[in-house]
């Protein structure tokens, strides 16, 4: 399956763009996706923290992803 992942703030600079595409052989959990992202973009590990969002909601580690999901890397927020 193909997953398109949006990136914001510092994550946009780490992945080198507003979004990245990952090709996967299986349907991953959020935890598995996070591991894959960290292998591909080791600088993610240097962040104070980051979360993944699925379809505009913060996701849990055990959530399972689906083909059309809108996934986003959410680095530490700093609005306001």
């Amino acid at each position, binding site marked *: 399956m193909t997953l398109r992942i*949006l990136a*914001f*703030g*510092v994550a*946009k*600079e780490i992945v080198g763009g507003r979004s990245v595409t990952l090709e996967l052989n299986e349907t991953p959990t959020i935890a598995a996706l996070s591991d894959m992202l960290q292998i591909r973009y080791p600088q993610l590990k*240097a*962040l*104070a923290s980051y979360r993944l*969002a699925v379809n*505009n*909601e*913060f996701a849990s580690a055990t959530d399972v992803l689906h083909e059309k999901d809108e996934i*986003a890397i*959410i*680095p*530490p*927020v*700093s*609005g*306001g």
Partner: protein
Amino acid sequence: MIDIKIDTEPLSLQTCFDKVMSPVAGGIDVFIGTVRNSTKGKKVVHLEFEAYETMALQEMRKIAENIIEKWPVHHIVIHHRVGVLKTGEIPVIIAVSAAHRDAAFTACRYAIDTLKQSVPIWKKEVFEDGEVWVAAHP
């Protein structure tokens, strides 16, 4: 009434006030964030705010809905600006009206505290000699 907005145009204090004003309100609390001219002694040239807009609007709405459940307030406005902001400009305005001031203050404080924790908006500080995404790194 809940009014949520993310805008590239300057925010209007009067508009936010007018929206929460109500003949049944006795007190209105308004929080206005402003861009400081320095961070840890370093001069800030400008700020850039970026939002994951669909999710940010949804998180802002959740904050307002939680407030209406938790405290006896009438109206809540949360307006956030994105794009390039200079010193003295306004990134955020939160206004809350209530029959009594206690609820207005408590809700307004909760709204800005929660917004800063959970709403996917990011701020980049641009200095004369570099730039940094606020809070990104430990």
